């Protein structure tokens, strides 16, 4: 049985003898009070009082698809900045620094991470660890680089077969590409 109603911060929702303060609630002077503006759920089975925010923050969870910009690439890993979670409008709360280990870059064997992605690339990645640090993977057809610029002239690279090509410099390039390279709309 779950009882629900709308609450605002500071509103008394229950006594501590009845319910355990959980997400979105806190305890003061033997009372459970709402900490968030949203919907209160009193779980009579678990005996918990939870408030689900009307406008929740964006926190990372395992398996989330995220968009990142690559900020640095070493031989064994790429460091990137998480810009947003796919499907969520609100900015990410908390740490935004993620790393992709060379073994998690592609389904195939990768000798050198610097061949797969380069600084300033925009990638789609999947979250595989949130705490203590954000770890990402780009192994999978839908994951990898979605936008890359030519390293010489900084014009967008176009996809040609499995690789990339700069029409301006007439030079081929390579990345670990996502299946919708250059076709992602933000």
């Amino acid at each position, binding site marked *: 049985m779950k009882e629900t109603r*709308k609450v*605002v*911060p*500071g*509103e008394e929702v229950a006594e501590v003898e009845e319910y355990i303060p959980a997400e*979105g609630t*806190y305890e*003061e002077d033997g009372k459970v*009070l709402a*900490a*968030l*503006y*949203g919907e209160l759920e009193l779980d009579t089975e678990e005996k918990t009082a939870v408030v689900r*925010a*009307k*406008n*929740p*923050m964006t926190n990372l969870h395992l398996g989330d698809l995220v968009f990142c910009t690559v900020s640095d690439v070493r031989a064994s890993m790429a460091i990137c900045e998480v810009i947003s979670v796919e499907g969520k409008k*609100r*900015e*990410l*709360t*908390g*740490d*935004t620094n993620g790393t992709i280990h060379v073994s998690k870059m592609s389904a195939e064997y990768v000798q050198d991470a610097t061949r797969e992605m380069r600084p300033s690339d925009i990638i789609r990645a999947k979250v595989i660890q949130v705490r203590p640090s954000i770890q990402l993977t780009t192994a999978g057809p839908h994951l990898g680089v979605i936008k890359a610029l030519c390293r010489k002239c900084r014009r967008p690279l176009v996809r040609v077969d499995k690789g990339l090509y700069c029409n301006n410099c007439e030079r081929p390039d390579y990345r670990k590409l996502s299946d919708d390279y250059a076709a992602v709309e933000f």
Partner: protein
Amino acid sequence: MGGNSNIKLIDDNGIRIDGRKVDELRPIKIEAGVLKNADGSAYVEIGKNKVLAAVYGPRECHPRHMQNPAKAIVQVKYNMISFSVDDRKRPGPDRRSVEISKIISEAMEYVVFTENYPRTSIDVFIEVLQANAGTRCAGLTAASVALADAGIPMKDLVPAIAVGKVNDQVVLDLNKEEDNYGQADVPMAMIPRTGEVVLLQMDGHLTYDEFKYAISLGKKACAEVYEIQKDALRRRYVVESEAEQEQPVSVPDQEA
């Protein structure tokens, strides 16, 4: 605070120049969630004051050296728009707005559960569109509704109001004339449920008894403002559920 003056701001019947009694608030209007791009927002009108507050975060704190590894910091930017006062106000931060930003940020840090979001910053932007005395109170009132609207966990909402002394009488919620030609101005913010004071300043002089009476007036007024704040948040739910109902129930089949 112009000091003592001969201007009569309260008549013999105890009615002030804007028609209020000495313990009467100006009309207050609060609306939550008025801005689309901010994480949370609120618009507050207290008499002729018009204040807009927007909240972003908790987000990664820049510059990095301001991060606190144990908790989030609340950064407030209070700003008066150039057309908010009679003479054009020179835009940009000044001594007054830096002070107000600091005290509002300290008041907000007390109520927000900052320890849940280490190394982040919660950014609050308060823009005064029209000023008529008591903008810091209006700003804090708006900021706390905006924080709640942003889904940031906090102990309670913070209502704020000013009390003061005009023509040797303690009055509630000073307007501009009373602020300019009165004898004291005491902006205060109090959580009505616990009676905790999170903001208190005094400009001018009050005797101990006057001060005690002023605080009791302010306490009652804070409780009133608090109800209006709660109502603003609750109303937001009603508006959205009505909007949902207005949407067409069945989508016409486009393939057919």
